[in-house]
């Protein structure tokens, strides 16, 4: 294999391995801790909307989790990336390696983490007497790729710009929170009033989360939503990469 390609793969492996090791500390408790966070969120929303506000929905706990887990992947990746270059400043200033590796491995790491948490979703499905669907075999990989492309594009953009405008980090935090409530994660798409339905697809995360939930809930692969998501993904990647290309050689100056 071409040495450059091999080196790129090794860089990704080493960095991702590092993050996974630090995160899980190679044991089962580490794993429990890292699914504890989205589960705690799910619990809070369950109490607030099902127990207190009595939303009329079947299997609301499963519904929440099926949307929250992929959302967490996106939100974790994007909220970490503003500072990734800053926290690797010492090495960026000295060694000339492809810097996009760092956000790449972060998004990859969060993706792996999401994959590891799919058994938890299955567990909740079994509780509600549902079974995994054969369409998962191709549906999950497709959606993984689509979401990876989108999250990586956004991460590249955010991490590059944040070096120059260091308060972008805060803005990103606010935007993620806004985006969370504008995406049908804690409520179903059908609950959105008719006059706003047309706005739904303006939110890039919306078709993606709907796709995930359709897949987990009904084993349904709806190509329209996937294509819209893919469109957003490619757009994000193109813009993110262009910005990164333009700015990357200035990273060592500004750090």
């Amino acid at each position, binding site marked *: 294999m071409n040495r450059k390609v091999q080196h790129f793969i*090794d860089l990704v492996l080493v*960095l991702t391995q590092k993050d996974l090791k630090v995160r899980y500390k190679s044991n089962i408790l580490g794993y429990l801790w890292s699914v504890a966070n989205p589960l705690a969120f799910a619990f809070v929303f369950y109490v607030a909307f099902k127990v207190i506000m009595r939303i009329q929905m079947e299997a609301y706990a499963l519904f929440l989790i099926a949307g929250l887990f992929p959302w967490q992947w996106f939100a974790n990746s994007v909220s970490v990336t503003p500072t990734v270059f800053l926290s690797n400043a010492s090495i960026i*200033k*000295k060694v000339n390696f492809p810097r996009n590796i760092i956000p790449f491995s972060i998004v990859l790491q969060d993706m792996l983490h999401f994959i590891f948490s799919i058994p938890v979703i299955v567990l909740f499905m079994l509780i509600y007497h549902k079974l995994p669907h054969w369409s998962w075999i191709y549906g999950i990989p497709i959606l993984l790729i689509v979401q990876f492309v989108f999250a990586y594009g956004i991460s590249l953009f955010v991490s590059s710009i944040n070096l120059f*405008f260091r*308060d972008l980090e805060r803005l990103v935090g606010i935007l993620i929170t806004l985006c969370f409530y504008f995406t049908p994660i804690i409520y179903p798409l059908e609950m959105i009033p008719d006059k706003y339905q047309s706005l739904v697809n303006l939110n890039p995360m919306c078709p993606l989360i709907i796709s995930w939930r359709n897949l987990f809930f009904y084993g349904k692969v709806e190509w329209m939503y996937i294509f819209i998501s893919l469109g957003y993904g490619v757009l994000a990647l193109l813009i993110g990469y262009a910005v990164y290309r333009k700015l990357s050689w200035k990273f*060592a100056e500004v750090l």
Partner: protein
Amino acid sequence: MSESIVSFEHVSKSYPQYHQITGGIKQFLFNLPKAVRLFKTARYLALHDISFEVKQGETFGIIGRNGAGKSTTLGLIAGVLKSTIGKVSVKGKISPLLELGAGFNSDLTGRENIFLNGVLMGLTRKEVANKVDDIIEFSELGEFIEQPIRVYSSGMLARLGFSVASSLDPEILLIDEILAVGDITFQHKCVERMMSFKQKKVTMVFVSHSMESMVSLCDRAMWIENHTVKMIGDAKAVVKEFVNQS
């Protein structure tokens, strides 16, 4: 022997004043006209019209006061900075010696960090695997190598760092103030290894405030003052002149 490995031709490097914008979007927007004007016009000149060559197998020292532009020069050689004017050309694989613990992760063990660092510096995992035993042996860290490096002393970190960087079969070794750490025996070992690099005709660029090691290691030296070359020549002569001045 006479092929030039690193060459700078009338190189200047200036930065925009990034602090105008790194203060944040908010600050930038509130002072928009002024910030844009300053950003476009006011530039910080780090190096001005520098020309020099480092030949194959040569050990080249760079001296100068703090902030004179030594590290910028190293950054240009390493390829992490681009020159504003002029041409920098470098032939060969560069291996920079990093400052204490740079590129290491404190939660990983010494051994895991060797892989992390080696791959970041341009090797494949297989290549690092072939060298890992040598690196560990040279570092003299013993069983500490299996412990997370957050328990290491700064001397141990320096040993690990030097062991990794110097084991990567560099063609060009960049050394920025590294010998000041570690105990005497290890410092001695480092100097020995650098001597062996010298014999193996590895090209080295060496930045230091230690005039002693400058004289003992370097063939030629460059003195940078006020962002430009004050003197280039035989290491002893340059150091002598520099010491007289200050």
